[in-house]
């Protein structure tokens, strides 16, 4: 019953975990949020993580993104072992190497759209690559809205700004946590198409947590979690195939 050991050498993974476990509490009240998870998120691909509530999918993403602590195991983003980083280095990693898209409250209300997009670069004290920025802004179609504050944008527009921000600093990997959860289906579809374009056109690596089989169908690969373990995965999924697989969790 030995877990497959992946040697910590160069792989083609943008991020990966090795025997990752996360335990809350101890003794009687011990809860295993993640139980010995070993997974690669390949470079240049779009991976979706699915599973019932409480399966640990959000926890997995938070751990890999360096937002949450782990109990045992290893996490690599590129070649960097997150376990060897201190608070400050983790912050810098998040700023420079990782992009984030959240379900809600994705923007700083006091900054306008453009300032929100360049926020990670501003924090790093770097200036944005103008050409790249223009490309991104054009891709997400925000040209005339850049000087608006978040409160003046619709939910879909806000999420497009968030996508642009996640892509703007050319991160090694983008993590998206239910990015379409708060949007109607049309706005949601737009966001998913942008993410798909980013993967296909710019070779961006993306990991997305979602509940929605349609959203998952935009990914190259869907990984299923249950009770903190990886239980299955589907390559080149369709919405129907994902739905079928999900139904079996209920059975």
């Amino acid at each position, binding site marked *: 019953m030995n877990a497959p050991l992946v040697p910590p050498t160069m792989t083609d993974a943008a991020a990966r975990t090795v025997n990752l476990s996360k335990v809350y509490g101890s003794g009687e009240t011990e809860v295993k949020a993640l139980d010995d998870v070993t997974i690669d998120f390949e470079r240049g691909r779009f991976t979706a993580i699915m599973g019932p509530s409480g399966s640990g999918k*959000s926890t997995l993403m938070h751990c890999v993104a360096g937002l949450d602590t782990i109990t045992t195991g290893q996490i690599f983003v590129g070649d960097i072992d997150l376990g060897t980083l201190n*608070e400050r280095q983790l912050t*810098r990693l998040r700023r420079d190497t990782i992009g984030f898209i959240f379900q809600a409250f994705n923007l700083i209300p006091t*900054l306008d759209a453009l300032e929100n997009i360049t926020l990670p670069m501003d*924090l790093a*004290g770097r200036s944005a690559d103008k050409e790249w920025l223009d490309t991104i802004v054009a891709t997400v179609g925000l040209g005339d809205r850049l000087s608006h504050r978040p409160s003046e944008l619709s939910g879909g527009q806000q999420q497009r700004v968030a996508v642009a*921000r996640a892509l703007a600093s050319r991160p090694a990997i983008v993590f998206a946590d239910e990015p379409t959860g708060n949007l109607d289906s049309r706005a949601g579809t737009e966001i998913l198409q942008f993410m798909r374009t980013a993967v296909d056109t710019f070779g961006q690596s993306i990991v997305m947590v979602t509940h929605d089989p349609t959203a998952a169908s935009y990914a190259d690969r869907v990984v299923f979690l249950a009770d903190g373990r990886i239980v299955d995965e589907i390559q080149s999924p369709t919405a129907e195939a994902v739905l079928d697989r999900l139904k079996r969790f209920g059975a």
Partner: protein
Amino acid sequence: MLKVTLRGLMAHKVRLIATAIAVILGVAFMTGTQVLTSSISASFDKVFADVYASIDVVVRSDTKIETPFGAERTRMTDEVVPAIEDVPGVAAAEGQVVGQIRVLDRNNEPLVATQGPPNFALNWLTAPQLNGWSLVEGSAPMGPDQVVLDAKTAKDGSYAVGDNVSVLVTGGVQQFQVVGIAKFGKLETWGGAQAALFDTATTQALVGEPGKFDWISIAGKEGVSQAELRNEVSLVIPAGTEAITGKEFTAESQDAFQKIIGVFNTFLLAFALIALFVGSFVIYNTFSIIVAQRTRELALLRAIGASRGQVLRSVILEAFTVGFAASVVGVGFGILLAIGLNNLMKSVGFSGPDTPIIIPMSAVISSVVVGTVITLLSAVFPARRAATIAPVAAMRDVAVESVLTSRRRLSAGLVLLAGGAIALWFGLFGNLDSGLQLVGLGAFTVFIGMTVIGPVTAPHMARFLGWPLARFGGVNGRLARENAMRNPKRTATTASALMIGVGLVGFIAVTAQSIKVSTVEAIDQSVSGQYVVTSDGFGSTALPADVAIQIRALPEVETAAGLRGTFATVDGSNKIVIAANPKDLVKVIDFTDVDGSLADLTVNGIAASKTLAADKNLVIGQEIDATFLQGGSTTLILEAIYDTQFPIQGGGWLITTEEFNRLVPPAQQTDSSIYIELKDSSKAGIEAARPSLEAIVDAVPGANLQNLDEFKQAQTDQANQFLAIVYVLLALALVIAIVGVINTLLLSVYERTREIGLLRAVGMSRRQLRSSIRWESVIISLIGTLVGLAIGLVFGWALVKALADEGITAFAIPWAQLVIVVLLAALAGVGAALYPAWRAGRLDVLRAVSSE
């Protein structure tokens, strides 16, 4: 609903700490002040009661003059004593003489400072029923060279029976032989005062007039009540005198002292109220923010059936609980504060009577009531806002604090400002009896007006002040500016608390600076002499008349003019009349003759200042009636009307020294200051004259020789001392305002948890986050400080204009001090942000990014 309130209270207790601190500090100050002053006054009451315990009836003159130090009465002879002794109920009657002297130590320096307890000279009473002093050692004083000292003075100066002791009296320093040491009852002395007892004739010669007494003390036989005795004595005393009971006499002294300590008490209470006023802003802000943050919770309560009244009462009850509890704690701290201050005063040598701490119930009740009511009032508006939350808000996203539409707010604020300014104007320039109250009301209204306008102006100020940050401070600077602007009401209220404290500091600083500059300018322009001699004694212990004479006799000296003064009734009102030798005076101080000639003032003449002459429509040649309490009445001719820049003390009347000496007894014939004109006024000449001047001045205890620079410095130092005390008292209000800044930042950080989490998630370092919060704090602090200083400057300017008649001619701004205030405010902003920024840095990033 009660349960919900109490649960809410427990859940928000951390957020209510600032409210509690604001109330506790203000209430503690208020209680402490009252406990301290009532303890002091109670102990002095006891001293007076002890001192006059043996007196059953007092007979004294009914001619008196009111001075700021209480009523002064004409002295009387003791011719009436035999008649009083014939009254059946009288056991003994004897005249009492009281005056001021200074007992010196072996280095010829006064044993106690001017600011210390009084130094009494008393005549030794021979009737044992009347004399409260009992000899511990030695014998009663007899003849012109003998003195009995109180046990404490003897101990302090280590004088024993048989020693010689020097005493500063009107004629100069005089030597006496200590023949006895006495205690007053069980006490070493009268409540800290210094007492030197001489025989009656000596006492009269030293501090009074031969054959005259201040009053006659009478002891009754056993079984005769004080009232009966007074009625009997009243029948035998001559016209111009009155008889009162010992109780009434004691009560008069107690009341006079109560009045002085009452002023002190009011002065301190004013600062306690300022602190509470500032605190009310902190309380208001806390409740506003808590209500805003609980919008959803309160809306949910409404949605499930809670009435508006219930929500309102819930918030009010919360405020009441916090206010009451904090007030009670504040009273406790206040009592501790009073005990601490009392001990401190003892340890720094304020040797008042032993002061047992007295806690008046009225102080406790008033402090608790004021603390609770202020909390309640400050919470009323937030509570009303809570009650108007619609149930549907429970279903909406986070609600923002609503701001009254700018236009209505602006006009309301402007109306308040205008009203305040008008009240100030009439208070200062209207010559009204209630001027001071009107000024206070005006200032209060102006502050409220500024607070109402605050939310309209605060974002603009934040944008302006934050410009360099946004331009050069990177994204954290930009965020700091935006955050300071995003909630105008919150920023404005927080800044307002600071504004009031700083406004008062600025006001005091400008006024004090103007007074200092005016004084220095006046001295520069009007004093043509080179040296001034001053004394820290007054009345009979000021500069002996001989000093000016000795100085005038020095070869280096051209002229020396001594100024002396006393209270007198001139032309129908009580004023201080100044006396000098006019020919000498005009040489050392510049006077302009408006009419007549001051230099030619004669013995029968009197001069008036320009202002006085204008007020009273005086004309040269007019007859002026003057009554000197201890000297009698005379009629003088107005011979000169003068004008001068010199800050001459008194009411503007000036007479010759010769006439003065004719009108007042020798004990008052002392100079309060002497101005000296040298023959050689070059720098070298001034320095060369110093040694011979010093030789004369150093021989006089309490006298100081100052050249003009030193004289100006001494005048300025006095103002600085007062300034320092006021600043210390205002510090409390500033501390509360800073607590308010900390509190607002903490609550804002709490409110922005998700936002901060997002910033951290996308790569903001803790350091950047902290710097952002720090700058936000600095912007808020600077808004309060700059607005406060601006208001302070305007208030100061108005007061200086109003005081133009009092010789405050210059309006001066202490720029360096104001810059320091601004820097301190910025620093306080940084300090206030320390804890909130640290908290923000510790926030769990995940809380922001996990969906609800």
